[in-house]
């Protein structure tokens, strides 16, 4: 980890493994550090005053947040009138909870009872969102992957389909919201449809592009070994792109998550988006942050999980150890974790 400072920023040089890990951890710790500074150091930002005792200001209540100028003004008025000044301490706006509050919310959000009858608990909301994503992504892949492969392997199919796909791709998926509700009703179907529309067209283009990059030398080798056209597609082109296709799917799954948030406000609002909107309405911003971060964690874990599975599915690749493995090896230097 000790590196001569002159080599810290050597152009194009990868730092050593341990130093890389330090940087990875820092990339998370730095923003959290800034957040903690803003939250816990009273003279950084803190544009409001949280009233602790209202004194003689009529409309102040204990716990009320008021702007610094208003607080000073009202206190001046109260003192002038011969009353007691209100007391309070600097505070941040309600939409910026402190890190420990958000951390606590990771647990307490699951315990927060739904306010209205029929509303869902957080874990139910999350599960609903995951189901929507999985269903939408599966439906899109069922059509998008085969079509993409055909486009990549056979140029005439590309010429036939890609112009119109390129055209539709530029129409934002949420624009189809009203249409989806009209056709598919207000519940889960239009949400799945938005994710399918948002993913499918990109998917065809991305997959086709990957398949198109196959190595023509391998095709020629297979031809001299007697492979016919069907065998070329199924036994050469497809397996040669398999790793890249798998990684494409990982990236596309990430895109599907971005469409989820839009999809969930279509028709009857539901899932994690509904939870976030609802908590924001009740001004439980620590729950809002917790839910947003949870989406990030679910996404990262799915991606790393798929990467882990990928390394076992495609044993012919020479892999560098993944960041997660490196992290656990760093945490437990003994032979606790098998690579």
């Amino acid at each position, binding site marked *: 980890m000790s590196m001569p400072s002159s080599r810290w920023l050597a152009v194009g040089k990868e730092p050593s493994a341990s130093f890389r890990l330090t940087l990875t951890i820092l990339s998370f710790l730095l923003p959290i550090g800034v957040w903690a500074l803003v939250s816990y150091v009273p003279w950084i930002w803190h544009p409001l005053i949280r009233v602790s005792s209202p004194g003689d200001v009529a409309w102040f209540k204990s716990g009320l947040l008021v702007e610094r100028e208003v607080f000073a003004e009202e206190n001046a008025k109260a003192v002038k009138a011969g009353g007691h000044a209100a007391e309070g301490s600097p505070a941040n706006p309600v939409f910026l909870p402190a890190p420990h509050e958000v951390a606590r919310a990771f647990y307490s959000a699951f315990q927060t009872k739904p306010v209205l009858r029929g509303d869902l608990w957080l874990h139910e909301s999350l599960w609903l969102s995951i189901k929507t994503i999985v269903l939408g992504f599966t439906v899109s892949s069922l059509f998008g992957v085969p079509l993409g492969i055909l486009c990549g392997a056979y140029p005439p199919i590309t010429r036939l389909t890609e112009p119109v796909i390129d055209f539709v791709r530029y129409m934002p998926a949420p624009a189809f919201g009203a249409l989806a509700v009209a056709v598919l009703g207000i519940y889960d179907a239009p949400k799945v449809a938005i994710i399918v529309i948002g993913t499918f067209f990109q998917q065809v283009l991305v997959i086709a592009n990957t398949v198109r990059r196959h*190595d023509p*030398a*391998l095709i*020629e*080798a*297979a*031809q*001299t*070994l*007697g*492979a*016919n056209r069907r*065998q070329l597609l199924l*036994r*050469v082109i497809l*397996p*040669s792109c*398999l790793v890249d296709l798998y990684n494409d799917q990982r990236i596309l799954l990430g895109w599907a998550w971005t469409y989820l948030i839009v999809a969930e406000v279509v028709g009857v609002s539901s899932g994690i988006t509904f939870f976030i909107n609802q908590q924001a309405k009740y001004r439980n911003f620590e729950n809002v942050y917790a839910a947003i971060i949870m989406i990030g964690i679910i996404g990262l874990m799915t991606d790393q999980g798929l990467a882990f599975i990928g390394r076992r599915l*495609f*044993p*012919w*690749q*020479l892999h560098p150890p993944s960041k997660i493995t490196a992290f656990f090896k760093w945490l437990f230097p003994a032979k606790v974790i098998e690579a």
Partner: protein
Amino acid sequence: MNSLVQSTDYLRQEPAVTERFQKLKQRPVVLEIQRLGRKFRGKNGPVTALHNISLKIHRRELVCVIGPSGCGKSTLIRIIAGLDEPTSGRMLVDGKETSGPCPERGMVFQGYTLFPWLTVKRNIMFGLEMGGMTPTDAEGKALEWLRLVALTKFEDSYPSQLSGGMKQRVAIARALAPNPRVLLMDEPFGALDAQTRAQMQEHLLEIWRNVDVTILFITHDLDEAIYLADRIIVLKANPGEVQEVIEVPVPRPRRADQFNSREFLATRRRLEELIHPRVDVPREKLPIVRLTPVGDDVE
């Protein structure tokens, strides 16, 4: 070069060598090419890459094709493999006209072209399975081939785990497994270092002794061509034409110590004359200017 070599004509064959070539030419013709031509569309009209190439290659013969860069030797072998189409002429294998890629004409490429997602064994099984062989039979045959190229230990390795020479041995086994009539090799050892290259040449001759196959081998390495070939076809560029066919007088079996033999050096001299012809025009002197001052003591 010493005077002994200069006075030797490579055409003067020993009676034993003459007899060997007479026997060779009595063998059936496996691959025949008749007046083959290939034109490419260029910016300034058509470019003739190959013009009127005719050759006959006999059973179990090893023929090398050599020529300056741009003489179309790669185009020639790609046409024979069926990966490119000639604009004129025809090609016969065992007297029957053919075209298009076919396992009867196996090919080994310079870039190995092993399937990276298949193990060494399954790479060799590929051609057999394409030919309709059951996986069990194909596996048995693949293992035999692995023994021949001495890679039995690596049957379950992936190509990325092998060295260049080992990869090329797998590629040779893969091309030979479906029993081709002709094995086409397009500068197969071009990417290997000198030592591995020498080993591979020896290895190829060893394999060829054990297999009934006719080999057409492209190279730009003169020593490689003489060491391997029965006959060397010398092409010339613009347009690509057969310049000369050389019957290599070096006796078989070939050994590394023959590199300095009279026949070897004579053949090499002839090849050099053909490929790098001496130009009588005095070469323009390069204006060399000393850029860094050098003291008299090191001059």
